[in-house]
């Protein structure tokens, strides 16, 4: 009865993969436009998870409701970070950006640690354990919602990038920064908007994850490493790449976790990440000689 086990594993992998893809989307967007690897992405995801947690615990808001407040809030947070901290602190040097985003990651993660301690927290929503039957598998409702919501956000992002003025400006800057500057586009503003969008994706991902996941200051890191793997696999700056890559990685992780167990499953992800970095196709990102 292997199929009875494999199919649900794969489907669950797909569901999880969509949320990974959402995290990866933010990362790939930031890389595609600013050409920086945002080391603070994981810590920001942790912060978003805690924000969703607090909304539930103290405001009684279901995460599917608080997302509408948290997404704009985190957009502003991301905008502010890029505009007023990362941008100025980096003086344009790549090596500096690396250190600044690392510094932010350290600050955010440890601030969460200091305020919330390391204990794991969860929220209890009435539908957390509801299941839906599909193709012989029982799928948790939050995960199914997450799957569709992730695609929804991806579609919204696509719409923003293709149809709005700011979206066009973002694409212009991603392609040709100096040309865009000459055309009068405020590159600093575009960078900040992009960073804000990427961070907003994290807020949505957090609200989708929290019904069925736990919260502690280090959770974000695990997700972000998977997200990094997806982004490198799917192509830095590619939105469809992030989506497909996310689904793929979700399935792989699900199968690995099923066969290898939790910890080794985690190592599997790291090893996949390392292998992807070491063997990615030549010339894809121009970092190779």
């Amino acid at each position: 009865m292997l199929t009875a086990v494999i199919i649900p594993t794969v489907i669950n992998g797909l569901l999880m993969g969509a949320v990974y893809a959402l995290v990866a989307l933010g990362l790939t967007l930031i890389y595609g436009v600013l050409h920086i690897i945002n080391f603070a992405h994981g810590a920001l995801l942790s912060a978003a998870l805690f924000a969703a947690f607090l909304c539930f615990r103290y405001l009684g808001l279901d995460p599917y409701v608080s997302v509408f407040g948290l997404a704009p809030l985190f957009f502003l947070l991301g905008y502010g970070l890029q505009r007023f901290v990362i941008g100025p602190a980096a003086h344009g040097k790549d090596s500096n950006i690396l250190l600044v985003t690392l510094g932010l990651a350290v600050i955010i993660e440890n601030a969460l640690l200091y305020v919330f301690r390391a204990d794991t927290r969860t929220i209890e929503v009435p539908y957390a354990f509801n299941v839906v039957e599909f193709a012989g598998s029982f799928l948790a409702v939050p995960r199914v919602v997450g799957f569709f919501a992730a695609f929804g956000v991806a579609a919204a992002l696509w719409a923003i990038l293709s149809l709005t003025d700011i979206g066009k400006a973002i694409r212009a800057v991603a392609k040709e920064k100096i040309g865009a500057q000459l055309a009068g586009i405020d590159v600093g503003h575009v960078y900040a908007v992009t960073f804000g969008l990427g961070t907003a994706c994290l807020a949505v991902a957090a609200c989708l994850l929290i019904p069925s996941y736990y919260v502690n200051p280090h959770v974000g890191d695990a997700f972000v490493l998977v997200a990094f793997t997806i982004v490198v696999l799917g192509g830095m700056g590619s939105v469809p790449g992030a989506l497909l890559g996310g689904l793929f990685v979700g399935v792989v992780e699900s199968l690995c976790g099923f066969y290898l167990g939790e910890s080794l499953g985690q190592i599997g992800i790291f090893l996949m990440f390392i292998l992807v970095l070491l063997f990615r196709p030549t010339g894809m990102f121009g970092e190779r000689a």
Partner: protein
Amino acid sequence: MNSRKILPLVIPVAALAVVPVFVHSNVVLNFMVIALLIALVGQGWNILGGYGGQYSFGHAAFFGTGAYATAILQVRYGVNAWPAFAIGIAAGALVGAVIGFLSFRSGLRGSYFALVTLAFAEVLRILASVAPITGAGVGTLIKLDLRPISFQFQSRAAFYWVILALFALSLLIVRVIENSRFGARLVAVRENEDAARALGVDALSVKLWAMTISAAITAAGGCFYAQYFLFLDAGIAYGPWISVEALLAPIIGGLGTAFGPLLGALAVKLLGELAKFVTGDAPGLDLVLYGVVLVLVVWLAPGGVAGLMSRISSRKTRAAHG
């Protein structure tokens, strides 16, 4: 190399060496030991990052390997502490060479290099947290045996002199590198790898050597940690805290300078003490402060303390001549 180059190293080291003669407070000595330990670990990072320009976010991989190798050899195989120390350094160097070879051969630079070193350190941390040989979740405990033959000492001053000697050795290594062809090539690769290659520099070989030396020095710090604290677990040995402190010290103190790591380590540890003083021992706050300092230093004083000092002295020189 003439005495003119060695003297500036000898004087501060000599000054530090006499500290235990006048200071008997265990609290202060402990602080100095830890500061020198971080300075040593930071010096390792400095060689690869400061002089070589390759920023590793996973130096814990070498620290932890040195620490675990030393500890496990003693605890499970009955090896004497001193050869275990040496083997620990070698083990760390080997891990450095392997990671370096894989990363540099694949052409990883900048952010990608930082990412992959981070990943390697995490893999080791997870492995250490489940592997039976390291005691898994429980950790590894070295048996207390306060005799020099077991590389443990009754007096804190003895530990202090050992770590000072190790740091002084690292200073010497850095000074030799600074005045060698290898060093000239290393900084050339940092400044502009392609231009260096066009001038005959085998960038891969240079970076690999730098990585290996860097790993060895950082591993020595790990070995010392094991002997001083006698307890390790995966989070201590391979945790992000040491990867962060390893880079923080040289960045704050002055990248690519021999004393930068020491200045930075002192600054970092003083900050840590301040944090503890203000808010008690709550976990996380010291690292928050470190993160803030990192961002501020990169933003406002990229040359670190050493950079500020040289800016002040050149301003004085200009004022004197002006």
